[in-house]
């Protein structure tokens, strides 16, 4: 059997594939953070909680309203994104002129409130969300058994990432957005409703988190604390990629997923820390991040 650094080829390929799946997840989550930070300069600490709310909305929607997975994949991001817009309109806008730190504290506080409220009603053990029938079972890739659902997550997450990148970098709406954050007064003089654009952008970023939450619901137990453990890693990914860089967030997310996956084979004890080691290295050598433009 072919060996790669003392590990059988098949195992190596398997871990690479799983790393890619996790990486797609990181990419999707860090993308939402990057969009919000890049365009609004808000460090959105509620992102993990919004991801969790997405998973919960899918679970409760199915349990009480009979909304199936596919419908949830569309509806939940809209609902949670709408909730995000309310947060932006009535809370974040009031502190937009203050230092970034206030936005960070506000969103962190919101995250604690969302989590605490749900813990109170649902506990922390989590609940299961059934995998949709058509995505059950697995694919035999020769070197591993890949559950179909994970393959779907990879495809769905990457498609969403590309869609977002295209929207912001290649469309007129995206151009308005970028210009609006660059010089909002000038844009307003041209008759563009910048505050509305900002509200929509925040809602979109939150919707991305909720979309990731629905994708995650069949994979992990749906619990109020599922977002907080992920959030820190995702922040590290954004810092490595460069705060605010859309493409950076996507590529770094995938890369970090793979690095983490391989660490799980060669030195599992360090699996939770390896991303932070990379972060330290990147900050030392390229303080603006791998794809960042400004320090």
């Amino acid at each position: 059997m072919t060996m790669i650094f003392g590990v059988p080829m098949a195992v190596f390929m398997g871990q690479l594939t799983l790393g890619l799946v996790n990486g797609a997840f990181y990419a999707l989550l860090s993308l939402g953070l990057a969009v919000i930070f890049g365009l609004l300069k808000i460090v959105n600490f509620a992102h993990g909680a919004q991801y969790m709310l997405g998973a919960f909305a899918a679970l409760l929607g199915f349990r009480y309203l009979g909304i199936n997975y596919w419908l949830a994949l569309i509806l939940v991001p809209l609902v949670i994104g709408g909730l995000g817009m309310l947060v932006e309109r009535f809370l974040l806008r009031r502190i937009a002129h203050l230092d970034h730190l206030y936005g960070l504290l506000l969103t962190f506080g919101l995250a604690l409130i969302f989590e605490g409220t749900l813990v109170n009603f649902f506990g922390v053990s989590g609940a299961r969300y059934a995998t949709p029938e058509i995505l059950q079972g697995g694919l035999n890739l020769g070197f591993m058994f890949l559950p179909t659902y994970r393959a779907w997550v990879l495809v769905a997450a990457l498609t969403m990432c590309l869609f977002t990148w295209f929207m912001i970098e290649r469309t007129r709406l995206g151009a308005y957005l970028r210009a609006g954050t660059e010089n909002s007064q000038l844009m307003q003089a041209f008759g563009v409703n910048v505050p509305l654009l900002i509200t929509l952008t925040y809602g979109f970023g939150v919707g991305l988190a909720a979309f990731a939450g629905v994708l995650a619901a069949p994979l992990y137990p749906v619990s109020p604390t599922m977002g907080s453990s992920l959030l820190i890693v995702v922040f590290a990914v954004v810092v490595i990629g460069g705060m605010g860089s859309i493409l950076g967030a996507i590529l770094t997310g995938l890369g970090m997923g793979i690095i983490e996956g391989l660490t799980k084979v060669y030195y599992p004890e360090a699996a939770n820390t390896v991303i932070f080691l990379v972060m330290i290295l990147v900050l030392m050598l390229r303080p603006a991040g791998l794809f960042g433009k400004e320090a």
Partner: protein
Amino acid sequence: MTLMKKTLAASIAVAAASSMAMSTAQAEISDGEVRIGYLADMSGTYRDLAGPGGLSALEMAIEDFGGSVNGSPIVVFSADDRNSADVGANTVREWIDQRNVDMVAGLVASSVTIAVTKVLEENNGLGLVSGSAASSVTNEHCTPNHIHWVYDTYPLANGTAKAVVEQGGDTWFLLTADYAFGHALEADVTSVVEANGGQIVGGVRHPFPTNDFSSYILQAQGSGAKIVGLANAGADTVNAITTASQFGLTQSGQQLAGLLIFLNDVHALGLEATQNLLLTTGWYWDMDDQAREWSERYFEEVGRMPTMVQAGIYSSTMHYLKAVEAAGTDDPETVRAQMAEEPINDFFARNGRIREDGRMVHDMYLAQVKTPEESTGEWDLYEILSTIPAEEAYRPLSESQCKLVQN
């Protein structure tokens, strides 16, 4: 004049008598109140196995006892230790210094328990540990100031691992949480598996906590071991079992062995993912009439069936209050001695007794998770397969490293 003298003398006598009565009462029950502090993880990973549900169990015990001991009311304080040893130790120090708390109940994460029992020993307090797993709590970390009530890693390994090897599961791959508790469990399991003729063929120490187990499950599948042992707890165990079912681990002929599984974990995972899992438990709500009767009362109060830890909190608090009543004092040393004198046989513990190392030994049970077809209700989750007698279940005193045991 005589009348006045008599009245005066009488009132002095009454005053003296009443002040004497007061001072004796103070000597018996400090501050005229029995003060209990409930310390547990109220919001994190371990919330559902003890948490607010454990506080309800404690309050039930006090209510059933009548709310007071020999006329002195029972007062409860509670706090969230957030699974932090520092927070736990500081809270208990404050309770003892400023509120004269007589007994601390709950105590879940082993790291918090070990820190808190040190504080209790320094300040001559009393702790009744219900939630912790590490057997070191009454081994190298034993103190004369605490009692470990519900279970520990020794019977967990001894019960589950032994039964699995006897059923032919002789090659093991271990998924271990990379911290003190996981290491202790891993060591206990390894020695039990090897002593029974089995073999550990591989393992992974994963960070605590871990979100995604897919990589480790893949490694376990690649190992070819018959049994994949989970030397972790709480959300990690739940995550590992979920992932194993997604990757078809059991369908491909391997079997999972959960070494520390609580009722709330199985409830959360559902029977589809956990069916036929073997586990060791200190108690199960549906194991007999006595347990059922208490649990149904608890269910009415809380809305969930109790875990073994929550039942243990009731049992240990009740035993404590009875000891305070019998001894006529809440002095920790006297009460602990009184508690150790009485055997424990209630809805929770069978053949229970408190050893000199502070371990409350009682019958443990080997259980199997039911299949969805066998289960008749939301909480009908376990089938009790056999009883592990109290005297066999726990680490024998002859192997103890506890300073209170003469070896």
